[in-house]
Structures are given as C-alpha cells and as structure tokens.
C-alpha cells in the first residue's frame, strides 16, 4: 500500500517533486531512539511483512578475463540488518554496484521491493540510498551543500532538504565542519558526509559499502545507533565490511562471499553455526596459514 502511495508506478516518468513530497510526509514519526523523524524509513509495507527488500538473482559480471561476480543469488528480507563479508577482491563492491544500478550486470536481475533496478531504474533508485565505495564526491562543495545537493537531486523541496541536512549533520557530528569544503575533510569525515547523502531522501533500503572504514569509534557508535533506529522503524540496511566482530554484533543477517560466489547466507546464527563468525569465515574462505612466519622475522 505505502509503496503505491509514495512511488506511483505504471507511469514511465512520474512527477518527481510530488512523489518525493509524498515520501517525505509519509515518513512516520517513528519511535526511533534518536527521534530523527526525517531519517526514519518510510512506512514499512504492512502488506508484505516478510517480503524481500532486495532480491538478487544470478548476477554476473566479467571484467576482461576476470570473472568478478559469478552468479550471485541473495535475498535480503525487509527490515533486516544485513552484513556482506568477504575477502579483498571477492566481488562485494561489484555486486552492490550492480544491485543499485551503478554497474550494468552481464546477466541476472536485482529487485528492490519488487521493482527491477534495471527495468525501472528511476522508481528503484528512489527506494535506495547508496554509499558507494571508491567513487569521488562533488568535493568542491561544502558539507552542507553536498548533502543538500543530494537531497535536491532526489527532487525534495528546499524546506525538507534544509531541515534534514541540519539533522543529519548534527547526528553525524559534522555541524562544525558543515561550511568546510569536503575536499578538506579527513577520510572518516568524508565517509560520514557520504552516508548523510545516502540518507537524506529517507530511502527504504540503505546500501552501505564499507561505511566504517577510517571512521573513529565514537562516530561509528553513533552511526550504528542511527542505523539500528532506521532498521527498527522498518528500513533495511546492507553493509559490506571486513570487520567480522562488528558484523556479528551489529547485523542480524549475513552473507559470506568469496571469488564472486555466495558461500553462505542467512541469519547470523545460522551462518556461524555455534562458532565465531570470523572462524566460520576463515573455514569457508580458506587460505589461512598456520606457520610462525619466516625465521628471520623472529627477533629473539
């Protein structure tokens, strides 16, 4: 129901501003711990409580002779906090890029709340907030300008944008730096401002590629609170990360991906099967050496 209201489908070129306004006003003043009304996800679809926020089928991508993603299937339940873990070069970023419409897959489909990302990109992308890894930002803007820019690109009204930008900058401890150019930000601040850009249009699905990289522990804790509040209010979060214990503590679902394939997926408890997630990960992925290192590196 809510989905129909906020995002009129069936029209190939929906009216952006009215659609986004509807999205803005339909955001409930949820009982999120941070009481950040504008940040709460739009009403969860009660019609399909157990539906998939993201449904990936057979995604595949080949770069030259290297198969980066080799037929990935993934079901991300609506309202879940989903962790995506894997070694370097496993295809996490490639998978997430294809699932969010930033990289054209060679094969396979990705549905966001039932909307095909590659058939109806405008409708699908309005449901997603993306923190992409390895892309630049428009870093000659100030922090506040950059967040406002993202909001205005999503077609939101100026009042909404101003209000939400202020909220986000405060929540992410960036108010001090709001009038500094993003190019002068530290790596952690840049991650945080990118997160603010992903959040400002109150997406129903949040896809965060390495959101905690180089973020300080205090800000990371604040971001976790923010994300938990968002999930509690019905939003869905997907994070990719290398930090296993972080994923084990923070997420309720996890998928382990290596060499472009999903090795295990499900709730955290299913996947770790009684063991620590990190050990399970090493078991599945392999490549752990049991040696003490070369003799010359032993100093005594």
């Amino acid at each position, binding site marked *: 129901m809510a989905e129909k209201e906020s995002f009129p489908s069936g029209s190939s070129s929906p009216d952006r501003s009215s659609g986004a306004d509807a999205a803005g006003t339909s955001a409930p003043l949820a009982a999120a711990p941070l009481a950040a009304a504008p940040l709460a996800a739009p009403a969860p679809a009660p019609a399909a409580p157990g539906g998939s926020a993201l449904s990936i089928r057979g995604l595949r991508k080949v770069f030259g002779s290297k198969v980066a993603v080799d037929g990935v299937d993934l079901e991300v339940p609506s309202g879940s906090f989903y962790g995506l873990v894997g070694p370097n070069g496993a295809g996490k970023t490639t998978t997430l890029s294809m699932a969010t419409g930033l*990289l054209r897959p060679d094969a396979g489909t990705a549905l966001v709340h039932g909307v095909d990302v590659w058939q109806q990109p405008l409708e699908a992308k309005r449901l997603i907030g993306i923190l992409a890894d390895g892309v630049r930002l428009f870093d000659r803007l100030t922090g506040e300008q950059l967040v406002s820019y993202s909001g205005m690109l999503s077609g939101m009204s100026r009042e909404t944008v101003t209000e939400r930008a202020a909220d986000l900058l405060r929540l992410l401890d960036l108010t001090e730096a709001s009038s500094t150019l993003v190019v002068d930000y530290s790596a952690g601040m840049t991650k945080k401002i990118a997160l603010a850009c992903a959040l400002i249009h109150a997406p129903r699905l949040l896809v965060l590629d390495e959101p905690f990289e180089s973020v300080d522990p205090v800000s990371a804790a604040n971001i976790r609170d923010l994300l938990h509040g968002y999930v509690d209010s019905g939003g869905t979060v997907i994070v990719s990360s290398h930090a296993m214990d972080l994923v084990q503590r923070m997420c309720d679902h996890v998928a382990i991906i290596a060499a472009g394939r999903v090795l295990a997926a499900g709730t955290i408890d299913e996947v770790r099967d009684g063991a620590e997630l990190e050990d399970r990960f090493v078991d599945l992925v392999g490549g752990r050496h049991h040696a003490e290192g070369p003799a010359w590196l032993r100093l005594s």
Partner: protein
Amino acid sequence: MVATLVRLRFLVLGNGLRRSPWQLVAFIFGVLYGLGALTGIGFGLLALSAAPLEIARTVVVIAGSVVVLAWILVPMFAAGIDQTLDTSRLVTFPIPLNTLLAALGASAILGIPGIITVLASIATAGTWWRQPGVAVVAILCGLVGALTCIAASRTVSTIASTVASGRRFREVAGVLVLIPLILLGPIISSAAQGIRTAADALPRVADTLAWTPLGAIWAVPSDLAGGDAASAALHALIGAATLVVLVFAWRLSLAVALITPPHAATRSERHRSTGLLGIAPATVWGAIAARSLIYWFRDPRYLRQLILIPLIPALLVLYSNIFHNPGLLIIAGPVVAFLLSLSIFADISFDGTAFATHLAAAVRGADDRLGRAVALAVFGLPAIVVVILVTAFISDTWAAVPATLGISLGTFLTGLGVSSVTSARLVLPVPAAGDSPFKSPQGANLTNSLATFVAWGILILLVLPELALTIVNLITGDVVWGWASLVVGVALGLVLVSVGIRIGGRVLDARGVDLLAQLRRAR
C-alpha cells in the same frame, strides 16, 4: 642504492607505457621531439663557430641563462612533471640523505629534458672547435651548467612541494601562469619588433647576465676565446659557487621535506553555508546548475577556461594594434561564444566518478543537461554581450553590433546544444579534480584534440545560416542583414539548444552507467 632508485624510475616509466598505447605514442613523440631539438641545437652551435666572437658569446650566454631559468620556473607551476621519484613516497625508506640526493639527481638527468640539456650543454664545445683548449673548457662548463639546471629545478620543486602543498596555492598558481603563456605570442611578436631595432643592446644584456648566477658559467669559454683570462676565472668562480650553493640548498630543502609530511599545511576554508544552492530554483536542474556554477568559480580546471573571456579580446586588441587593423576586434564576441559554449563538451569527464551521485539519485538525463547548460548561460550570455559592446566601443564598429550579436548568440546557444549531446557520449582523459590543470594524463592530448575538432566542425556547420547573414552584412554594409542574423541566430540557437538537451538527455539516460564505468577506468 642509487642504481636501485634509478632502475625504479625506469620501471615506473616502462609500466606506464605498457599500460596505455597512447602514453607510448606520446613518449615516442617526446623522444622524437627531443632528438629533433638536439640536432637543431647542435648544428646551430657548430654554425656559431663561424660567427664573430661577440655574436657567439651573446647567443650562448643568453640561451644558457634562459635554459637555467626555464628549469627553475617550470616545476613551480607544473608539479606533475617527472615526479616519478616522489620524495614524499620515499620518506618511509631509510635512505641516507646524500644517497637520495644522488639518486634524485641521476634520475632527473636521465629524463628526456635532462638528457637533452646535458647533451646540448656539452655541445657548446662545438662552437669553439677551432680552439681545442677552449672546447675542453666548454665541455666542463657545459656539464656544470647542466648540473646547475637540475640542482636549481630540484631545489625549487622540493621547496615548492613543502611550502606550497596548500591546495589553494597550487590552484591559483596553476591558473595565473596561463595568462603569460597565452599572451606569449603577441609578447614575442612585439618583442621581436623591439629587438630588431635594439639588436645592438643584446651583447650588453649578455654581458650583464654573465655576471649573474644564471649566465656566469656559459660565459667562461668565450672569455677564454677572447683572451680575457681574469674574467674567465671570475665567471667560472661564480658558476661553480652557484652550483655548490644550489646543491647545499637542495640538500637542506630535501632534509626539511623528509620530516615535513606533505599536505600538513592544508588550511581549511569556510564558506557560506548553502550559497548558490540556496538561491537556485528548488528543482533537479536548478540544483545541478547551482552546483556547476559553484564549480565554475571554485575549480581551477573550470576557472582557467573562464580566463578566456577577457583574454581573447585582450589578445585581439594587441594583434589589431600590431597589424593596424581594428576590424579584427569584430571576431572577439563570436570566438568567445564558440570556445565558451564548447568548454563543457566533455563536462562529465570533469565530474569524474562523482557523477555516480547523479546516477544514484536517478537524475534524468534532460535535467542533467539543462542544469549544466543553464549554469554556463547564466554568466556566459552577459559576458558575451559585454565583450561585443566593449570591442565595438574600442574599434568604433557599432554598425556591426547586430550582426556580431546574431552570430555570437547563435553560436553560443547552438554550442550548448552540441555540448549537451557530446558530453553525454564522451569521456575524455582530463586532470582529476584537485590536480594541477597542467597535469594532463599522458597521451590524453591526441584523443582530446581529435574529439575537440569534431565538435568544432559540427558547431560550425550548425551556425552556417547566421554566419552567412553576418558575412553578407559585413560585405554589403547593410544593417538589415545584421538584424536578420540576430533574429535567425537567437531563434535557431534556441531550437538547437533544446533539441540538443533532449537528445543528450536521452543518450545520457541510456548510457549513464557506461559512462560511469569508463570514468572508473580512467581514474
């Protein structure tokens, strides 16, 4: 250790060449250019041996001083040139300072400019081949001179990279240096006229330079050839002292650079909170227009295109004075309109991967195109009108104003349409945001100029109607044709710009993702 670092330098060069065929082409052109220059210099120096002593001395001293000066100035503005062995990347290795000094010096000598400078400096012996003793001294002095060049250049670039690692400084310097570069042509031609009358002054210039660190060492052989041993000794002393001082200064600056991390001096600036984004229409295209405008005035890669607006009329004023033909000024408006409208013909390349923001927000192609075009038009249209009025005032050609307005506005609007389509298709290798505008990726020039010329050709074809009307006006002197040019130019321009935005928008909708993939690769 020195050999290891020099080998590293060639390894980096080799890998770069293997990665991109265009880079290889650019490298081969560089080598050929160097060989050509070297041959020319060699024959020139040999020919000087037949010239009177005073002329040979004047040429060698002035040319030598210019070469030293060039080695000092170039790295100040083009930080990207030959940073293969970047000091800041070597900081973490425990390399003794003197070893590092030798290695950096050796790798600087072994670049194309270094090799040419060393060989050309030694070739000064060719001028004195009739007096073998002097020729031997010339070889020694040439070596000292070449080493002076390299030591001076490394000192300056080491100091510059330590002191001026602030982003703002680099940006401003990068833009400002363009002005003399663009004005170089007229400066040379007016200077050439001056020189022709004042050729007698040059030997005195050379004599003066011979007493400065720039030219001292180059004067020694000619002193000897003229039998002035005392001057020769003094000049040699000045030259040698210069080299010693420079090496010490370089050593000192390197020692400082090694313990001063780069970018530590970055001073963050504060700006008014939302600025233009708070004023622009609260629509998608309005936001994009505001963002583009902010970039036009904050990003040096855009700023340096803005300099064209005052510079082209200034150039034409100079030329029209030189050739005593005020009519030349008429083309100022059309030329500015032409270049300005096509300056965004690969706009998305300048975004780099930040373009992902537009893709992620599902911005429609037409909004993207419209926003960028509006941003340029907001200041471009008034600027063109001002250029036309000012040049009309200077050359007193008011009767031609309707015609020039017609062709200029027509060209500008049509050019925006052309750019809207081309920038939805093309990703060109351009310097990344924050790099020096000069640091064009190697091998970029060939592809870039080809694409540029195609866009120019298309634009010229599309403005033929108003161009024809303007020319008829200028030939017949009948202003009616000028007014017709104005009407046709504006009407046709408006039609073509809206068609361009629509087509470009559709292309961008279809190909946006592929552009992002290309931009990622280009990084």
